[in-house]
């Protein structure tokens, strides 16, 4: 049975982040970022710890991360930009989650390095947390799917998270 990968790739978990979390080196830096996000969703933090660069591995507050994996509801990952320069890379990404009845997102820019073919997390250049704008769609508003029909006659009225 196929399980969609939590990273949002629309691939089966078993061919997306699954193998990387199990120990196969991530083929690209983007794949590493995706797998580290998925590891939070799956409470598989050994993977996150293992893919910290050695000089920052002891900085990883695993106790805090373990709590976060249990407490947050993960809503999705969006990779905004990947800049690769040889064996180093910068990735800008957005993580959406729910915490204490609040929909939140963090926008981060993190640095990565490739050591012996393995992509590793090195640092976070910036990270900002912000509440997400939640807009309520009126019953008679145009449907957000773009059909042109009224929302009540199409996909229905639900909270849309931007």
């Amino acid at each position, binding site marked *: 049975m196929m399980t969609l990968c939590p990273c949002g790739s629309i691939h089966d978990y078993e061919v997306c982040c699954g193998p990387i979390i199990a120990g196969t080196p991530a083929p690209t830096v983007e794949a590493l970022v995706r797998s580290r996000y998925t590891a939070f969703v799956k409470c598989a933090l050994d993977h996150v710890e293992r893919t910290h660069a050695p000089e920052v591995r*002891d*900085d*990883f*507050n*695993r*106790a*805090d991360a*373990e*709590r976060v994996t*249990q*407490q947050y509801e993960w809503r999705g990952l969006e990779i905004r930009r990947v800049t690769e320069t040889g064996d180093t890379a910068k990735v800008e990404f957005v993580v959406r989650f729910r915490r*204490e009845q609040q929909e939140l997102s963090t926008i981060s820019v993190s640095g990565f390095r490739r050591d012996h073919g393995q992509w590793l997390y090195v*640092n*976070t250049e*910036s*990270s*900002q*947390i912000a509440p997400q704008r939640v807009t309520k769609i009126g019953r008679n508003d145009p449907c957000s799917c773009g059909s042109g029909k009224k929302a009540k006659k199409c996909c229905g009225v639900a909270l849309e998270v931007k």
Partner: protein
Amino acid sequence: MSATRHFQCTICGQCCYGLLPLTCKDAFANAARFPLGFVWTALRQGSKDYAMTATLGTTLTLAHRKELAVMITPTAYLPKSFPCPALGDDNRCSIHLNKPSRCRTMPFYPYRDERYQAELLKPRLGWACDTSTAAPVVFKDHQIVLRDDFDQERQALLEQAPVLRRYADYMFKYSPWLVGALTQASSQTKTRSVVTSLSSFLTATRNADAGRLARLQLPVLNDYATRTGGDAQLAEFHQNYRNWFQEMTYLSQRLDASPTCADASVRSD
């Protein structure tokens, strides 16, 4: 304000409530007694406690060449309405002989420069300190008369400053939200503070005793989480106790220094 100030404690117990700042040493020595957190307070340049705060804590450079002095205090993290767990029914301290440095030095406060100490002798609302001329002289010519406790606490604060600075560097690096929170807190007229976890301090300082400290904290945090549940005014305390309990649960199992205790420490909740 006269140059000579009098003070006598009347054992009213009123100063034994709420947050209690501790030295690192006192905090860890009392890990089985107090729920421990780290309280951050930021001061703007021009504040009279700026220099001492920068010496005992750290500084944070902001945009436009502005700077904040930040004090980071290991703290017995208790709501204002909660008495110290060591306060006895007779309003006396049940650990008097071993009480924290902070309690010995009261009402003086070595986080501030000595010349400002007279202001701290004024009893706060509801306190029954005797400051009449019948009480002994405790402050004279801008100096504390019996100064051993004050000097010892100040010395401990000076000695631990490098460790707290290391912790601050770690937090500013990995928790950028803290910079924003401190900036905001410093702009309020009433001094506000930000609270961080023991787990972050233990990680930042590579504390080899983390497992043992975590096991001591677990029952304490569990107890305070229970006692603060269902009270909207204590919601922030309650949430922090619960969060820290989860973190300490992990640490208590992972960093096990003494294998003989391993079985006893495994909890299920």
